[in-house]
């Protein structure tokens, strides 16, 4: 018992927020990687920027809440909320610094070399360009602007969360008293942030930011005033949506209410341009009630997410990776009976290397199949015009029993979810709006089909959401099976989600929040036992985040017992490697590549009787304790080998992998003298090679005479 306590020492753990910032740093490093095409690098800058926004709105906001509430408990690394905020502030500033120096010093000059200009100061415009811009302002921008002045009768207006604004100091023309007034105008989000303007050079392209167009013409908004100065700024508000579910009579209504309230949250970050006028800043500071340490002076355009638009601009294909087309899954021929394919054996899907179409097809075919009795599915973060939703609605109209669990608590997507949830309900689906107190994060789809020899259940289990657009960007694993044991469990899962009592036993699936944590600990303990008996013992696992104290402590214990542990953790990792006597046998690598690593694999050696699981859960307290998650075993030998290959290739990656060093730093692998392995690229190639060769259509073609119809 004493020993177990030892593994819980705060110094053995990394704070999760700081670890997250390191992850964002790794993403930013991709933007600094010279071997990557230029526009791809812009994309990574944009991602770090939007990541940081979400991080502030959710994590920093909740730490602020803790400080306000006087919450004194420390995290696993022994830090109080206040200490964490201070550390975050420091690291964020360094990150932002690096972000802008990358943008200003590397990317802008490189863009210039390729004939692309982003003008971020309107004073730099040529007269010809200036004329174009003014015209553009009059035609497109001016009509949608709403300037707001602040004085005794007009209080400080509500500044919307994450919106870009321009603040100006004004003085009334012919005012003897020289009284300075404050005004603000929102940069309209309905207009594109970047505007292409005529280029000075032949064949070149020039862009100007929308706020610059407004700034240049700001005088037009305040005709009776002299504009002393004008600077863009942006605020971030507390947006963590925590609903007290015990009080919420109707979850749906509550969320709709919260959505409206979110904009009123406390301001937790203010971004202003570096050269901002100090009088202007002090007015902002006072009216937004923001502390000095939460003000970020930015040396460039505020909110770099516009770079994603740059990435998507027309032309410049040579500055991007060639688009990758997800390949056909060898076992599933498009257009043919997917159920027949599944009956031949379990099928593994590896997205985005392999196409997501079979999953969409699975539901589409089920909706039309007269033998299908029921379709049940969990949906979480689904794209708005998803073909899956259309198929589910159609299935219900075709008289099938359709149950859909719609998770409304998915961060930031609520409004979107409510709309299509209601659409499904109208079509006659039985829609379950999540469970009180638990987020349903599991990804499972069940089709019940009446066949000649009785009812057969087809199940799709996955590590990623049923979202056909993210399936092109996130790496995920999925499995089709018609195993009776898993089918029974799948039915039980949906019964449980519909509010019936949990089943007495589970055959194969392991379900959080009740059983998953225990199972993981048991699996780790078993490896410890094998190691202690002198047998080979290892754990190889891949996930997005690792920050659960109990699991980490168990891993430390296992490492100490001699279990070899190799982890691929993309994001947060609170585990520290290389602590003498604690974690010497653990390696952690993080792969940040063109696709977002999202799959979860848990591979236990179990003295040769290997067990491989996949699932929707990370090793995070929220996944293990507050969510409905499903972990499923991969039992088919062929599939096990496929998953092993995925895991081994990722562990062998030396191009995109960052290795966690004993000091807590992530470093790329020294590639000298090694065969280069880029796991994501390798998977792309392998997926292409695996597609069955198309037989020559002309030789194969046989015209089949139609049979007389009885």
């Amino acid at each position, binding site marked *: 018992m004493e020993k177990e306590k030892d593994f819980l020492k705060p110094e053995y753990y990394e704070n999760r927020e700081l670890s997250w910032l390191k992850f964002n740093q790794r993403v930013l490093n991709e933007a600094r990687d010279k071997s990557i095409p230029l526009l791809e690098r812009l994309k990574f800058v944009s991602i770090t920027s939007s990541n940081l926004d979400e991080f502030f709105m959710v994590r920093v906001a909740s730490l602020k809440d803790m400080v306000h509430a006087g919450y004194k408990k420390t995290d696993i690394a022994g830090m109080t909320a206040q200490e964490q905020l201070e550390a975050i502030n420091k690291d964020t500033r360094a990150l932002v610094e690096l972000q802008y120096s990358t943008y200003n010093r590397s990317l802008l000059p490189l863009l210039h070399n390729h004939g692309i200009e982003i003008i971020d100061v309107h004073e730099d415009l040529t007269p010809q360009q200036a004329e174009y811009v003014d015209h553009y302002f009059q035609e497109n921008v001016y009509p949608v602007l709403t300037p707001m002045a602040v004085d005794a009768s007009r209080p400080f207006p509500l500044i919307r969360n994450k919106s870009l604004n321009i603040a100006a100091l004004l003085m009334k023309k012919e005012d003897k008293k020289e009284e300075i007034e404050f005004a603000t105008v929102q940069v309209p989000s309905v207009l594109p942030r970047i505007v292409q303007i005529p280029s000075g050079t032949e064949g070149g392209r020039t862009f100007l930011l929308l706020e610059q167009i407004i700034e240049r013409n700001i005088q037009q908004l305040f005709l009776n005033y002299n504009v002393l100065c004008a600077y863009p700024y942006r605020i971030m508000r507390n947006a963590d949506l925590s609903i007290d579910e015990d009080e919420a009579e109707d979850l749906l209504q509550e969320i709709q209410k919260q959505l409206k309230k979110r904009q009123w949250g406390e301001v937790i970050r203010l971004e202003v341009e570096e050269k901002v006028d100090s009088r202007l800043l002090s007015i902002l500071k006072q009216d937004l009630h923001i502390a000095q340490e939460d003000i970020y002076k930015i040396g460039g355009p505020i909110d770099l997410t516009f770079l994603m638009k740059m990435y998507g601009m027309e032309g410049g294909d040579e500055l991007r990776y060639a688009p990758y087309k997800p390949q056909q899954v060898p076992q599933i021929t498009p257009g043919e009976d997917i159920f027949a394919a599944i009956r031949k054996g379990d099928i593994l899907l590896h997205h985005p290397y392999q196409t997501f179409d079979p999953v969409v097809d699975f539901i589409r075919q089920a909706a039309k199949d007269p033998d299908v009795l029921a379709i049940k599915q969990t949906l979480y973060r689904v794209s708005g015009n998803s073909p899956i939703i259309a198929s589910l609605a159609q299935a219900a109209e075709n008289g099938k029993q359709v149950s859909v669990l719609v998770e409304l608590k998915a961060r930031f997507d609520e409004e979107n979810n409510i709309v299509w949830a209601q659409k499904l309900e109208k079509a006659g689906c039985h829609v379950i709006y999540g469970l009180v107190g638990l987020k349903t994060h599991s990804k499972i789809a069940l089709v019940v089909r009446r066949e000649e020899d009785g009812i057969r259940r087809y199940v799709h289990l996955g590590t990623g959401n049923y979202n056909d657009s993210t399936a092109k960007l996130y790496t995920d694993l999925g499995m089709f099976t018609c195993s009776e044991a898993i089918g029974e469990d799948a039915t039980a899962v949906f019964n449980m989600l519909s509010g019936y009592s949990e089943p*007495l036993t589970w055959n194969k699936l392991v379900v959080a929040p009740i059983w998953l944590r225990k199972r993981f600990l048991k699996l780790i303990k078993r490896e410890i036992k094998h190691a202690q008996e002198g047998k080979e013992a290892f754990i190889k696992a891949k996930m997005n985040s690792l920050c659960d104290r109990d699991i980490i402590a168990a891993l430390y214990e296992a490492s100490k017992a001699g279990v070899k542990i190799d982890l691929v953790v993309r994001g947060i990792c609170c585990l520290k490697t290389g602590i003498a006597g604690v974690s010497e046998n653990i390696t952690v690598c993080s792969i940040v590549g063109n696709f977002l690593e999202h799959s979860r694999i848990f591979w236990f050696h179990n003295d040769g009787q290997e067990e491989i699981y996949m699932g929707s859960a990370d090793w995070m307290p929220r996944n293990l304790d507050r969510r409905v998650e499903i972990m499923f075993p991969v039992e088919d030998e062929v599939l096990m080998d496929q998953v092993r290959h995925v895991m081994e290739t990722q562990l062998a990656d030396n191009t995109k992998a960052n290795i966690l060093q004993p000091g807590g730093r992530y470093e790329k692998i020294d590639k000298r003298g090694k065969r280069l392995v880029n796991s994501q690229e390798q998977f792309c190639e392998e997926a292409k090679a695996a597609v069955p060769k198309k037989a020559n259509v002309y030789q194969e073609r046989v015209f089949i005479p139609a049979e007389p119809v009885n």
Partner: protein
Amino acid sequence: MKITTFAAIYIGSYEVSMKVFEIRPGRKIRQVDYVRSRLELGLDAYSKGVIGYELVEDLCQVLKEFRSIMDGYKVDTYKAYAGNMLRTVSNGLFILEQIRIRTKLEVTVASNSELRFLSYESMAASPAFEKMIGQGAVVVEVGGGSMQITLFRKGTAVTTQHIELGIMRIWEKLSKIRNMVSHYETQIQELIDKELEIFKRLYLEGQDIKYVILMGDYIGEMVKGFSKKQGDGAIESERFLKLLNKWHKKSPKDIAVELNLVNENDPLILPSVVLYKRLTEEMNADFVWVPGVSIDDGIVCDYAQKNHMIRFLHDFDQDILAASKNLAERYQSYSGHTDSVLSTSTAIFDAMKKVHGMDKRERLLLQVAAILHDCGRYVSLTNQFVCSYQIIMASEIIGMTDLEREIVASTVKYNSLPRPPYESLRDKMDKDSYVVVSKLTAILKIANAMDRSHKQKFENIKASLRGKELIITIETKENTVLEKGLFSAYVEAFEEVFSIMPKIKEKRVF
């Protein structure tokens, strides 16, 4: 091959459940779905005597959902049973009506004995069961309001006792004092011990019991942790008790956590632990077996068996006969005379098959009536008919419904007493049953009369139908004046019922 999709619904005292099955002739019944919804109907039923409208509302809602699940599977047919508490509450009829109107489900309120038989059937579908009862076993079925203990010896049921002690009832009985005592579990134990003590003294003395078979709620969860089991799935009692003793001292919350129960403050968990513990201790068996079946399984077995889709290994009729014999022996009324009446009446029944239109089941009831027809003498020699009736009505015979028990008891009663007109019995049975009673009585009377002296003077009794006459051929070497004389007194009653004249044909044997 035709597959029948069947739904079994059971409304219990604290749970409403439904199982969907696929029945394929000649194959094992396959469970397709199982949904359970916790609904504490018993709480209202046992404490207030009426089920409140909120609960009725919830019940209808759950059943409506069940209905839609059934529709989803396109089930061919279903059976829905409700526990006895719907009969005991004053608004039971209206609840059934509500269910019928709102969910289109026809719910049968099963009597206690029927329910127990259903779960018994589900258990008997397992091959391990046959082996265990061959070696001596006690089956304990714990319900919300009561429990039933059946003792098996050499493969057949010896006795069945119904004890008004269920998990919910224990909790309810002690609810007033729960907060006044520090050792709640001791109070539970005392309550249980009192009831078990009598059973043990009456039935368990000198019995060698190898297995105790436990059925009921929570028991499945309790034995889930045992990975090491016997080949037949049984667990050594010692290990089982060790576990229960450990829990015994814990708080309900801790137990709930160990059992992975959803409701951490489940008030019923402690009574269950104490009850199972005491039962196992008192039965003193070597092994505990938890078959892990529910009434829903019994419902489907019963349906499939009645529709000739499956056949049981176990002969339930033998249980009924054996239990009846045991009952007769208990009241010292089993004799040569009983055997004689049994064989004569059976012979008459078989000979008359074409005329009486009754089937196997009524034949069994006749046999039970024959076996038990004298049991009342134990209480009173003059008023034995009424006493026999009372004894039969107060005894559980596993496999017999309440109505069947009434038929047997009435057959015995009117064997000697004049049969009243239907109108005065209509509160006890329907018309068809009344006719059955009349027929059985007529046969029993004749069979009884033929051994009036209780000396088994007739041998090789044979019966055959010839036109409008029933010829009963006998062999005898003794004076049969008494029998023959009295026989004619019953001829009329027989004729009245069957329009057949019974005649004795005597073969003298020297």
